[in-house]
């Protein structure tokens, strides 16, 4: 969206994001070292696994919304969409008694379909993304409550469902490393999305739309269609998030989800993706999500009062984005 960005060659743009990501990574390491020194209980296999487990859902949501933020948009509906996908999975698996694979496809399909609708609001109907997805957020929250009758749907009749997030394929192969499957899925989703972003036409248009949508449109590209595709892809990724959270809780909790979108967006921003669009990396988002859960877990392990945990998390977001601004100002001067 910003005119100046479009003039920066892609190579340079990418290296800028890479540097920001490296800094985020350094901050993550610093946090881990700091907490390890402050408490002997922090750097333990079980606690590290707990941190990774806590990252999995937020990380997947953040990866999805990164795509939309790079286009210069925003998606506030991802939290309640995650819940709606979980609910639909519950309907298919528990109420209809379908096999597990159909439940998985339902989660991803519901996410992609709802993402497509959001994309249509934004691209075709020209509703600003903030408003379009705010509307979606509320509609999906209501629908989850309506479908379930406000009661959670449990997955007790679907053997293996909890294994999706809670089991450990890695732990079975390498004893002593009980990496939860949910984390493995997060890494896979991140890798595939990074590949799409870096190596495919869809990825190229994602950056191009965020840098200068008008220029892309004037060069004869059907920007509306590409934008809808990006929202649908992000929605599908959020569907995987819905699968992970319902597997972790062994239930689809219809009232949950509000507020999760902001946590995901915070992770994206900490990871160096610009809310102005046109710039960002999936690896950065992954690191941003890890910073957030390391911080939350570490402060808890140190028994910091919950009120102060919230204050510190807020401060970290401000510091991360301000530091990024400083660096960019310096870069544009030099």
């Amino acid at each position, binding site marked *: 969206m910003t005119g100046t960005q479009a003039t920066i060659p892609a190579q340079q743009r990418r290296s800028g994001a890479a540097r920001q990501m490296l800094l985020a990574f350094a901050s993550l390491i610093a946090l881990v070292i700091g907490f390890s020194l402050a408490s002997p209980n922090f750097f333990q296999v079980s606690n590290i696994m707990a941190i990774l487990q806590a990252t999995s859902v937020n990380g997947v949501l953040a990866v999805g919304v990164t795509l939309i933020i790079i286009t210069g948009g925003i998606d506030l509906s991802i939290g309640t969409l995650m819940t709606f996908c979980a609910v639909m999975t519950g309907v298919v698996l528990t109420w209809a008694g379908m096999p597990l694979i159909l439940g998985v496809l339902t989660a991803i399909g519901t996410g992609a379909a709802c993402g497509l609708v959001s994309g249509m609001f934004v691209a075709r109907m020209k509703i600003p993304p903030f408003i379009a997805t705010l509307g979606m957020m509320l509609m999906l929250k209501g629908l989850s409550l309506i479908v379930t009758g406000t009661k959670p749907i449990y997955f007790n009749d679907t053997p293996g469902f909890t294994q999706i997030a809670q089991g450990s394929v890695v732990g079975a192969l390498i004893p002593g490393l009980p990496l939860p499957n949910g984390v493995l899925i997060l890494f896979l989703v991140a890798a595939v999305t990074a590949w799409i972003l870096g190596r495919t036409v869809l990825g190229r248009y994602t950056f191009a739309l965020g840098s200068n949508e008008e220029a892309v449109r004037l060069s004869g590209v059907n920007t509306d269609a590409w934008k809808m595709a990006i929202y649908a892809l992000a929605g599908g990724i959020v569907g995987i998030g819905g699968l992970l959270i319902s597997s972790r809780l*062994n239930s689809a909790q219809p009232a949950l989800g509000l507020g999760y979108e902001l946590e995901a967006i915070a992770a994206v921003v900490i990871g160096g993706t610009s809310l102005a669009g046109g710039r960002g990396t999936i690896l950065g988002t992954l690191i941003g999500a890890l910073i957030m859960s390391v911080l*939350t877990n570490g402060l808890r392990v140190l028994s910091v009062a919950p009120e102060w945990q919230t204050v510190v998390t807020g401060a970290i977001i401000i510091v991360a984005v301000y530091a990024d601004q400083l660096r960019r100002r310096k870069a544009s001067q030099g």
Partner: protein
Amino acid sequence: MFTRRNLLGAVAALSLAGMATSASAQDAMYIPLISKGFQHQFWQAVKAGADKAGEELGVNVSFEGPDNETQVDKQLDMLAAALANKPAAIGFAALDSQAAIPQLRQAQEAGIPVIAFDSGVDSDIPVALAATDNIAAAAMAADKLAELIGGAGKVAVVAHDQTSRTGVDRRDGFVNRMKEAHPDVEIVAIEYGGGDHLKSTEITKALLTANPDLKGIFGTNEGSAIGVVNGVTEAGASDVVIVGYDSGKAQTDAIRDGRMAGAITQNPVGIGYETVKAAVAAARGEQVQASIDTGFYWYDKSNIDAPEIAAVLYD
């Protein structure tokens, strides 16, 4: 480039330094309570009770809960962080009684006793449950209502539901006590309004139409009790005696202006206090009572502002 690293480093250092104080008292027993929330008045009262017990018994108590009662996954993350600290024992009020079972198993394997509070878990891992004895509390409501209507006449129950533990216990506690101790009081109807104000209002009006000589009604939770008050008011049957349960602004207002005779309130301070006490005992390997009654009170216009009652009421 260095600016950012320095800034983040400084924040990290500052926050760590700030915590050193809380983390240093390692020798005292550490007991975290993972609650259903921490911002609401009810949970703040539970926390106050827990802190009081911590002080008296010389243990470190921490109290944490998610922002609202929907965030089941956040509560699990809190439980995981609490377990990482190798606590002596843990207090836990489950938001979803099934979802937490993997973590509870982890606690069991690590030999950390778990005390459930406020509501139970579908598991035999918790060594004790510190909660309101709803049967005894509802029996007290029966005694009070019988006394207020002069020991004889027709009464009805508007319950919040027929499946949940609290719904069943409060109904049975009331009904059984009435039968045993007040044979001249006849329970003409037990209806279920789901704790919904409007539904309970309609039920109450129907009850009054069917039983014009009804003398009293017991509403088994906040929503039911308010529905009963509304129904009685709409039907213009102001001489019907109403007994409620829990508090909340609408209910305390109705008690103050006389539309409701009185209500049972749970004791959140007692819940926190007894949870920590049981946790300490369990950590020391002492025998702990499996079911701990945390107490309840009867309140009406006369004692609603008394300090011990005001402390356990919430708006």
